[in-house]
């Protein structure tokens, strides 16, 4: 009973399809002008509607479903806190002072440019913390500072009274001498043995400052583009960034200064969103830079990266479109040897694309970085409709059919194949919509709908155009020798017949080889790798990662009180993957009572020393050499005169010694005048730095009380405390490069153990990449499944279905082998081609199997016939269309072009070589549902051809 029902339903389906095609054929041949008018009107409406309403969105957040909590929180934080997701200007100056001057001037320029900029943040006004700044030193640092001030009191006094490199090294040398003499004398008198009753514990001598100072001097003398880095931290302790650097935003090694810019939002959102502001910032940088020799500066941050990516993609898409158009047109001309056919096909495609854009505007309303390539995608997928249609029409006309009969012939045969392919591909894209990723869902809807609309254009606009054109420009039969590449295809068919076993064996080997490379196929998670080589925002991001401890990608979390923020910050900072946490917690020191008393205890040690240093004396090179030479004797490797308890760590000694040797050697080899200049400059930086720290110390010795929330500088408060004061933001910076997958996964996983609601760029990136990847894989799977089912429903035979799927399957396997050969990885951009390959690949198989069933001829005849040529032309135009993407600078697009070209090429070879060979022996009747019946006027001729074929 079910079998009979299936047979009945199958017959009804076939009958319905046949009636619909007959109706369409009659409609087109009877009312071509009316159809063209209606279609033209619809096209105009679509273009107008699209131009008025379609938007472009560039953010990656726009690819994710807005119901995701991490996305909602990220958007919420962006509204409630200042400074999230700003454009970051990175400055790498020759020295710190130059950097400060540049940043100040750039800020002034940008603040005046209210057209493009709403806020500039480059310096924290710490005046509200005046008197309390030393509370940002930890209790241990404060104790160490006290010990340093006690132990090196003479040195500090000398430096404040007579600052200069000579004084500094003389004082250090004397300190070392004192220490050694002390030990030597005690050794001589037997005073070095510990007391019997209570052995005294003594700390090693701290030579960290000496080591850092020598290292800096060595770098100054040996590095051409030397940038000063403070060695004083080893003496004064590591002060908080907040009170360091005069309030400027500086990387921990003082290599970079940062300036944050809030660009003015453009009213016309689109790819140009933010781009105008970023371009204005870059112009300002370029105009200022000549006045600062040796300084480099650039723009980065998520906004700049997104904008550069979108602009790069847009530019590439335009170039690719031109290359693609020229290439495809040339191919059409080569195949058809006539202008009219390419013209008809392109016109039909243009109409189909216009309708698609109207459909996109109506249903989705915007394009994203994924769907912006809908036009080339549809060109690649739908151009075969027109190609197959026209190729068959030519064939029918060359058989002597008049225009009406020829069109009926096309509808009765080829349109069935085109429709089957179109519906299959559309269904594949519909299946993609099942993926849990908004970007993919939109792609599925747009591409699937677009294919059907292109099909609609193919069965309306194209035949109507043919009818009208035949009226004014009648078709003429081409001479045999002018049939496009007939000889080539004929030769190919012969070659296939003669060498079929060899070809089959080669195909088998190729397949096995490709399968062996499957384990090497991987997915590149690093979005920076998609960007064009040399993209400014990427280069600066990489430079920050290479030289600093943090990238511009920070995760975000919130707390409901400063106390909770402190607890959370401590928990985050305890994670191995976290470098640092910035929050209101970091702005309010802990253990403040203890710190206050420790700070006050410093006062007697420095109060009698001058608050302002005199100008350093010129460097006396000869005296400096003598002092360093004397120091060298004391830092000798086999110096046994160190008090065992006070001897510094051997590593530190070795490093200090090595740097000392470098400095001494430098002073011997560098010309005296050059060395003098270098050291004068170094001395200037060193003592300006010392003065800053000394002033900071002197003016903060008597804190009036603990630091409270009210003391926090307003620019920072707005960044860490929400507008209504109810939330406190934590910015969590990763330790490793979280553009790479494993560090990113580790970072996100660990953060979620502390707070499941953590969000921000790394989390969104992690989730979106995972969703995109899973979406494509899931979508690809669904698409393949849907295609297999629809192909079976279309062909109604298991054997034919498997044969139709063969080019696709083989092509995909071979593509993996090509990827290995070309060193190509899957990435976020080129995964989009997976459903495309499936869509394109299946069409070849369906058309060839349809034609085989229609004609009963496999092998060479199938290759040399119009279907073989159409499949070839379709594949080549697709390869040219997508291959044109390889002109792109943006690597993501380049990789799309390369992957799809390789895949379509592979599918084409499988379609033209392997499938026809297998069809030599394939049975015409398989198992399954009843076979499709051709239209009545074709059935007799077909039967005749089959009969003669069997004979």
């Amino acid at each position, binding site marked *: 009973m079910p079998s009979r029902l299936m047979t009945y339903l199958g017959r009804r389906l076939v009958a319905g399809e046949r009636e619909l095609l007959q109706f369409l054929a009659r409609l087109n041949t009877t009312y071509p002008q009316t159809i063209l008018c209606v279609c033209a009107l619809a096209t105009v409406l679509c273009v107008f509607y699209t131009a008025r309403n379609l938007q472009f969105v560039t953010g990656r957040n726009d690819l994710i479903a807005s119901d995701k909590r991490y996305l909602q929180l990220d958007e919420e934080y962006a509204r409630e806190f200042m400074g999230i997701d700003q454009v970051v200007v990175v400055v790498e100056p020759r020295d710190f002072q130059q950097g400060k001057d540049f940043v100040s001037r750039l800020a002034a320029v940008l603040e005046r440019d209210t057209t493009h900029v709403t806020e500039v943040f480059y310096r924290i006004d710490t005046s509200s913390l005046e008197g309390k700044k030393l509370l940002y030193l930890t209790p241990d640092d404060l104790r160490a500072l006290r010990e340093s001030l006690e132990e090196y009191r003479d040195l500090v006094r000398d430096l404040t009274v007579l600052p200069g490199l000579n004084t500094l090294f003389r004082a250090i040398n*004397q300190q070392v001498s004192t220490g050694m003499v002390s030990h030597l004398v005690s050794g001589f*008198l037997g005073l070095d043995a510990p007391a019997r009753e209570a052995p005294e514990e003594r700390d090693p001598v701290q030579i960290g400052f000496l080591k850092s100072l020598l290292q800096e001097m060595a770098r100054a003398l040996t590095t051409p583009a030397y940038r000063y880095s403070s060695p004083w931290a080893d003496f004064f302790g590591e002060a908080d960034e907040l009170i360091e650097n005069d309030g400027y935003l500086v990387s921990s090694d003082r290599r970079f200064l940062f300036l944050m810019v809030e660009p003015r939002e453009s009213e016309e959102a689109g790819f140009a969103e933010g781009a105008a502001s970023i371009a204005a910032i870059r112009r300002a940088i370029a105009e200022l830079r000549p006045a600062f020799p040796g300084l480099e500066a650039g723009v980065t941050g998520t906004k700049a990266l997104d904008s550069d990516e979108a602009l790069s993609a847009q530019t590439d898409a335009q170039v690719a479109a031109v290359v693609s158009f020229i290439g495809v047109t040339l191919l059409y001309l080569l195949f058809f040897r006539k202008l009219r056919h390419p013209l008809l096909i392109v016109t039909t495609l243009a109409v189909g694309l216009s309708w698609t854009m109207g459909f996109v505007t109506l249903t989705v309303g915007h394009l994203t970085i994924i769907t912006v390539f809908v036009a080339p995608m549809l060109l690649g997928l739908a151009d075969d409709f027109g190609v197959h249609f026209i190729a068959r029409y030519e064939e029918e006309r060359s058989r002597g059919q008049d225009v009406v009969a020829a069109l009926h012939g096309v509808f009765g045969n080829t349109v069935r194949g085109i429709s089957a392919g179109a519906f299959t591909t559309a269904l594949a894209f519909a299946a993609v919509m099942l993926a849990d990723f908004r970007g993919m869902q939109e792609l599925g809807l747009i591409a699937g709908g677009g294919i059907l609309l292109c099909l609609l254009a193919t069965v309306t606009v194209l035949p109507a155009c043919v009818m009208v054109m035949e009226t004014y420009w009648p078709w003429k039969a081409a001479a045999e020798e002018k049939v496009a590449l007939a000889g080539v295809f004929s030769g190919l068919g012969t070659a296939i017949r003669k060498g079929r076993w060899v070809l089959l064996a080669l195909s088998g080997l190729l397949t096995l080889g490709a399968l062996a490379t499957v384990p090497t196929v991987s997915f590149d998670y690093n979005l920076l790798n998609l960007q064009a080589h040399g993209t400014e925002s990427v280069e600066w991001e990489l430079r920050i990662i290479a030289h600093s401890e943090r990238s511009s990608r920070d995760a975000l979390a919130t707390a409901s009180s400063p106390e909770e923020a402190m607890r959370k910050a401590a928990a985050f900072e305890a994670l191995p993957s976290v470098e640092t946490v910035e929050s209101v917690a970091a702005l309010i020191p802990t253990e403040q009572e203890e710190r206050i008393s420790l700070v006050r205890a410093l006062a007697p040690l420095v109060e009698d020393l001058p608050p302002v240093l005199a100008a350093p004396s010129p460097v006396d090179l000869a005296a400096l050499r003598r002092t360093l030479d004397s120091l060298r004797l004391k830092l000798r490797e086999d110096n046994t005169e160190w008090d065992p308890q006070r001897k510094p760590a051997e590593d530190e000694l070795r490093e200090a010694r090595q740097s000392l040797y470098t400095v001494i050697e430098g002073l011997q080899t560098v010309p005296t005048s050059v060395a003098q200049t270098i050291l004068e400059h170094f001395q200037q930086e060193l003592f300006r730095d010392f003065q800053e720290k000394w002033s900071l110390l002197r003016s903060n010795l008597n804190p009036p009380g603990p630091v409270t929330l009210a003391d926090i500088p307003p620019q920072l408060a707005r960044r860490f405390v929400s507008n209504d004061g109810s939330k406190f933001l934590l910015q969590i910076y990763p330790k490793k490069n979280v553009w790479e997958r494993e560090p990113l996964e580790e970072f996100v996983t660990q953060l979620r153990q502390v707070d499941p609601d953590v969000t921000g760029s790394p989390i969104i990136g992690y989730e979106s990449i995972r969703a995109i990847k899973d979406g494509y894989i899931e979508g690809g799977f669904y698409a393949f499944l849907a295609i297999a089912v629809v192909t079976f429903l279309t062909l109604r035979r298991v054997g034919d279905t498997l044969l139709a799927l063969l080019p696709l399957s083989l092509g995909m396997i071979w593509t993996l082998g090509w990827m290995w050969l070309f060193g190509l990885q899957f990435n976020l951009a080129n995964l989009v081609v997976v459903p495309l390959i499936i869509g394109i690949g299946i069409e070849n198989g369906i058309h060839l199997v349809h034609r085989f069933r229609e004609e009963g001829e496999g092998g060479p005849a199938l290759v040399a016939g119009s279907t073989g040529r159409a499949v070839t032309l379709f594949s080549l135009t697709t390869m040219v269309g997508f291959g044109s993407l390889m002109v792109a600078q943006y690597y993501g697009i380049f990789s799309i072009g390369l992957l799809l070209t390789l895949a379509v090429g592979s599918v084409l070879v499988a379609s033209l070589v392997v499938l026809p060979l297998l069809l030599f022996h394939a049975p015409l009747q398989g198992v399954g549902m009843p076979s499709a019946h051709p239209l009545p006027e074709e059935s007799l001729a077909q039967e005749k051809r089959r009969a003669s074929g069997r004979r």
Partner: protein
Amino acid sequence: MRIRRLTSFCVIAAVVFGVVSQGWGETPAEIVKQLIGSVRSYKNTDNSAAQVRKVTEETLAIQELAQHVLGPQWGKLSAREQQDFVQLLQDLVQKVAYPKSAEFFRDLQIEFTTERVNGNEAEVETVVSHPQEGVVTIGYRLRQKAGRWVITDVLLDDVSLVTNLRTQMQQVIAKESYQGLVRRMREKLAEES
């Protein structure tokens, strides 16, 4: 090792600071040269030991040194204790500092760079150098007493050895006791003998 030898030399020099030099009318630089020459010619033989004893007894006023470094403690000692302490210092100079200083100076070059005389006081500066190991400045302070120049202090890169010696001894006395100081010095002597 050279540092240790250098130190020993410095300590010897420090010890002799209080000694009324048997100046024989020489200049301050000549006094310093005589001392260094005696140290450099030292050999570990009975004859040499006798020579050292003779030189130290003739040139070093160990008693004044002892009195200076012990400070107020000196007055609290009995005459016998004071004599013992002076002898202890003398033995340390002879048996510890002298041999090591001799060894130190063997491979080094000594350059007398400056001699400054200011009334009854004088400074002599020397540069002790080694080609591979750098240089160190050793200064000598001298005072004229009864027509003779005597060495009052030795400075290693301007760091006074005598001051350091006095400071350390006072610290040990304050922390432990005079007996503790003497015990340590005797142990050192036993260790080096």
